């Protein structure tokens, strides 16, 4: 299977949009090579600001740019761009509903060897708690590009969550995303799996195994937009499925599982299972970590089989 880097493709898209959108700016914090915003910086040095290792400053500078009609992108690692400037994101961006695009890379467990301080497992919860933020979790490099395009072309604050390693390519290169949209990646009738980001790949693989080895028909929904969220597909799946399983590279509380459970509970209660993180991890390769902590297709298959009646 082909793989590609969500952060690299997003960086190329930011560069591309810079050509047609003179208001697009980037504010970085000394990780611009890693986030690939250095591509924009080299082409448009007047619209690129490196504030050094100062994420709080970065966010409020972006707010000031946005309040003056610019479309600023702030970009750093997910651990540094979420928890550290949370106050600035809350008061400076969310409460003011300013047009700031927060594009954070190296999210989730698969960031790997740098260990638990670098593995962002809280960011989805944090950005969902910022009332006015749209939250997008692309499943592959092409969706990452589409997410950047959607965010830049839509007024208001956005969070886009990207990964460090290359991840499997699941979509065609012209994929378009919509606020509150979702994509059914695999049709199925017995159960439904909701996944976002890298876990969409594992959900698809799990659905194949369930079908081929166990004769179970699992629908896979790529729920890339978490705020706003496609409630209709969730309610439809709740009505048509024996149970729902959510898969996310994030802590169980405050993320996808919490979100889907709320909607299911209010509309058509069925069991909602979770494949997610429940502890801080450790250093290791991406594959070692997802296998040890059960964030993979095997875990999804096992959980489905254990709960089918």
């Amino acid at each position, binding site marked *: 299977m082909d793989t590609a880097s969500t952060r690299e493709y997003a960086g190329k898209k930011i560069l591309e949009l810079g050509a047609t959108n003179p208001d697009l700016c980037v504010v970085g914090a000394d990780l611009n090579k890693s986030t690939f915003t250095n591509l924009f910086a080299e082409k448009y040095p*007047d619209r690129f*600001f490196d504030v050094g290792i100062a994420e*709080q400053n970065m966010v*409020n*500078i972006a*707010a000031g*740019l946005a309040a003056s009609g610019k479309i600023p992108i702030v970009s750093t690692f997910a651990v540094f761009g979420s928890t550290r400037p949370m*106050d*600035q994101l809350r008061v400076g961006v969310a409460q003011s509903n300013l047009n700031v695009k927060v594009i954070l890379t190296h999210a989730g467990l698969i960031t790997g060897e740098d260990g638990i301080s670098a593995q962002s497992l809280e960011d989805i919860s944090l950005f969902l708690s910022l009332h006015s933020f749209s939250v997008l979790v692309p499943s592959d490099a092409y969706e990452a590009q589409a997410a950047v395009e959607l965010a830049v072309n839509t007024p208001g604050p956005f969070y886009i969550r990207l990964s460090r390693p290359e991840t499997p390519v699941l979509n065609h290169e012209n994929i378009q995303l919509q606020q509150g949209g979702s994509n059914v990646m695999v049709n199925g009738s017995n159960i439904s799996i909701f996944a976002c980001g890298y876990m969409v790949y594992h959900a698809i693989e799990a659905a194949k195994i369930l079908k081929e080895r166990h004769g179970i028909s699992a629908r896979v929904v790529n729920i890339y937009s978490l705020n706003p969220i496609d409630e209709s597909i969730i309610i439809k799946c709740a009505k048509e499925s024996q149970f729902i399983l959510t898969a996310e590279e994030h802590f169980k509380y405050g993320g996808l599982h919490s979100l889907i459970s709320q909607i299911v509970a209010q509309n058509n209660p069925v069991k909602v299972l979770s494949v997610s993180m429940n502890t801080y991890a450790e250093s290791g390769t991406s594959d070692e970590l997802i296998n040890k902590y059960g964030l993979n297709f095997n875990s999804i298959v096992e959980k489905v089989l254990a709960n089918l009646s």
Partner: protein
Amino acid sequence: MNINEINELAKNIRIDILTMTSNANSGHPGGSLSSADILAVLYGNILKYDSKNPKWEDRDRFILSKAHACPVLYAALAENGYFDTSELLTFRKLNSRLQGHSHIKTPGVEMSGGSLGQGLSFGVGVALSARLDEKNYKTYVLLGDGELNEGQNWEAIMTAKKYELGNLVAIVDKNGIQNDRFTHEVMDLNPLPEKWKSFGWECFEVDGHDTESLIQVFQSVNFENPIPKVIIADTIKGKGVSFMENNPDFHGKAANPEQLKQAIAEINNQ
């Protein structure tokens, strides 16, 4: 405005501050009163603005980073036609535009505040926008001295120097008192001018209650010089009201009705 009109404006701003905080039975009169002469000079003589068109794109930007002192901003805005002075009595009330800390949706308010340390970074972003758009507007950011405890200010101070933001003016309302105690007891900032200078800023010092000196210092700023400027204004917390002056108790407490009468009488006699 001439100097007499500015002094009259400062007086009215002080009475508004006292009246609205007392009416709300809460708010921050001390740090509002210490900034009153600064805002009277800015809105009376220095800033370019159109109160009937608050979003005029060429307006100078005044950013209140010490947003708990919003009574002084609301008063300056109302006294200069952004909205009716009668609206000041809705301060901190349900359904009012005048929240307890200033918010960007209120006409004339450039930034949402309430968490200290964010305004100078925001001002850097605004000043960078002016440069990108080739606009001549100036960006003024009012900071509290206690607020400078927040490390983010010093990140912004370095950034403004790096990007040679000659169109950015920080003003420190150096009233010497923060929430709990005197600033030199909580976290001594002295020598403050040397700190700013060592970060590469041009530093001016002025008596923050001498309106003529304030006008002179604001008018002396050379915006062609591509380094950011800071005006350290020595002020007195609670200035103008005898029992509030230099009294930490009135950082975040309003006058009761009896005290309000006395305070207004004192202001009117000055």
